[in-house]
């Protein structure tokens, strides 16, 4: 089994009577983005501070490549610290120096680079984060979103191996938020750093993470891939994810899984009571993983978002799209029989042919495979059975390929 880069073993931390970490076990693997989710005030930031050594555990161990942090020699600890960067929740920018000086500080203090080289590196990061023209401003003169980006620029200017992000997108508008997610994922791809992100941006953050861990009452309740967390039967995890999705309705322009489930169940109740037909069409981006690998996770998110937007435009107002899993969109068609759904599927496929539904074309060598399957609601099917039925091969309508 692969040795984790960082491993928290039975970590306990108490502040007064408040047990913040209560036997936390977590593994962070090299070259992956691990997202930590959990309730506000649940100890996620404390966990991050333990990883970087800003806080020491009351008991338990933090291992870096299998070596305990507390048993490291001073020089070893120094080398270890140099690999890290930390983006603070409250930005922690130095308010008495300018933005430029803030970003340049780690280079100025910890490298022997010449002034011109430092300036070049700082400007490069500022350009990447859309921070032009503010280098002589002070942090107090910036908006919250700008401060976040300055903090990100400061953390990334040293090209660190491990970056800890404490809620990097809180308080940002959706465009900037996506830009920050894109930057994290692009950087991760480019430099292969290990990222640990504390975030509430569900499900957007799942697109850029390889692993997700949920912290609940001081312990890691769930650890696994984004797909696994969406499918887990653990009710606390599901309630938490859905609760956050409710708060972020229409995130990326799509209604949440939770909303979809609610609406489908309403339609099922109508079917039972008034015998009104309804149908479901499930669109699946079959090669999302391949797209993510070739074009980056943000491309996957863009594909799903654009597909949903196109479907919303092309379907009647009463029909609604819901996100389902990372790569599926459910189209709910009230008062629609299977035959009508079939016709609609046909029309949609014709209308979508040739349209730049991905907003990404052309990408030579990358094809998008989208499949559509449909079914009509039946009184004898439960919600889960109906989804399975829709997915089944006999209901597969077509596969759609765009290159």
């Amino acid at each position, binding site marked *: 089994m692969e040795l984790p880069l960082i491993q928290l073993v039975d970590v306990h931390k108490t502040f007064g009577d408040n047990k913040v970490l209560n036997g936390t076990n977590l593994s962070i693997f090299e070259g992956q983005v691990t997202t930590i989710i959990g309730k506000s005030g649940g100890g996620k930031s404390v966990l991050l*501070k333990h990883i*970087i*050594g*800003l806080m020491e555990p009351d008991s338990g161990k933090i291992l870096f490549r299998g070596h305990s942090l507390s048993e490291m020699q001073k020089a070893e600890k*120094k080398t270890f*610290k*140099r690999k*890290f*960067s*930390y983006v*603070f929740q*409250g930005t*922690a*920018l*130095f*308010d*008495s120096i300018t933005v430029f000086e803030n970003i340049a*500080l*780690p280079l100025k*203090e*910890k490298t022997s680079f010449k002034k011109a080289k430092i300036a070049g590196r700082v400007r490069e990061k500022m350009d990447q984060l859309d921070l032009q023209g503010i280098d002589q401003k002070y942090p107090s003169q910036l908006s919250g979103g700008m401060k976040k980006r300055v903090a990100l620029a400061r953390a990334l200017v*040293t090209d660190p191996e491990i970056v800890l992000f404490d809620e990097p997108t809180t308080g940002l508008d959706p465009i900037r938020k996506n830009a920050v997610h894109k930057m994290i994922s692009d950087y991760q791809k480019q430099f292969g750093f290990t990222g640990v992100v504390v975030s509430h941006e569900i499900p957007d953050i799942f697109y850029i993470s390889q692993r997700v861990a949920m912290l609940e009452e001081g312990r890691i309740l769930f650890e696994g891939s984004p797909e696994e967390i969406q499918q887990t039967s653990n009710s606390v995890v599901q309630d938490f994810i859905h609760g956050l999705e409710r708060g972020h309705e229409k995130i990326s322009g799509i209604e949440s899984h939770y909303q979809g489930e609610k609406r489908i169940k309403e339609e099922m109740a109508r079917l039972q009571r008034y015998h009104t037909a309804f149908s479901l069409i499930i669109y699946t981006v079959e090669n999302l993983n391949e797209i993510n690998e070739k074009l980056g996770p943000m491309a996957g998110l863009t594909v799903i978002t654009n597909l949903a937007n196109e479907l919303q435009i092309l379907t009647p107002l009463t029909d609604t799209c819901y996100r389902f899993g990372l790569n599926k969109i459910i189209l709910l068609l009230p008062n629609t029989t299977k035959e009508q759904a079939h016709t609609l599927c046909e029309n949609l496929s014709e209308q979508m042919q040739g349209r730049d539904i991905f907003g990404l074309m052309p990408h030579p060598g990358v094809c998008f495979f989208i499949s559509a399957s449909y079914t009509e609601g039946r009184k004898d099917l439960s919600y889960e059975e109906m989804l399975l039925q829709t997915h089944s091969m006999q209901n597969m309508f077509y596969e759609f390929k765009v290159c």
Partner: protein
Amino acid sequence: MMTLPVYALGRQTIFLIRELGRIAIFFVRGFLLIFSFPLQISKTIEQIYFIGAKSVLVICLTGAFTGMVLGLQGYYTLVKFGAEGMLGAAVALSLIRELGPVLSAIMIIGRAGSAMAAEIGIMRISEQIDALETMDINPLRFLISPKIAAALICFPLLTALFDVIGIFGGYLTGSMLLGIDPGIYLNRVESSVVMKDIAGGFYKSLVFAVVVVTICCFQGYYTHKRTEGFGAKGVSLSTTSAVVISSVLVLIVDYVMTSFLI
């Protein structure tokens, strides 16, 4: 029941000794880091400007008025014994030995010490000090060492300025207002002040620099450890403690040093 006050006293004493130990370690570490390479020359110059250059006006004003009032009081006391000619010696010795170092230190506490405690305290509560640690920048070296170096340079210089302006203030009231011969005044200054007096004042100013800068920085640096107030209130309490503790300590240390130097 009877043992409770003794128990409380013991606990307070242990706390006080432990705190003194922490303060001493804080200073020693900060002081030694002044000499770590690369030397932080530009940061030290910035601090010299802040602690020293920006305090010149307030030192001149207080020095002048202290000297003037010494001239007035000294004259009316000495004239009773027909010894008004000794005014120059009285003013110069009291300034160089006592008032110069003590009053300069207290003025610098008010002007720069409180600012140091507040600045470092705000940096602590807004996680700026944590940010330095995550960048592997030693906060003691980055924030405290330049202040210690600057204080050690500025305190003796400001004290010297205070003394000179004070002696001139005494000259203003004694000679210009009350008619003592300027030659006699200046001659008494010259003949009464010996190198030991100047060295004593110099040592005092150095020790006061250590006391003031250590207490003020320490209070700010550990703002987050205060149990009686957090956030902005914590910073305000730290600033108040910094000013009160360092002022009282300056006076206590002055007494102790005088008793050894005299």
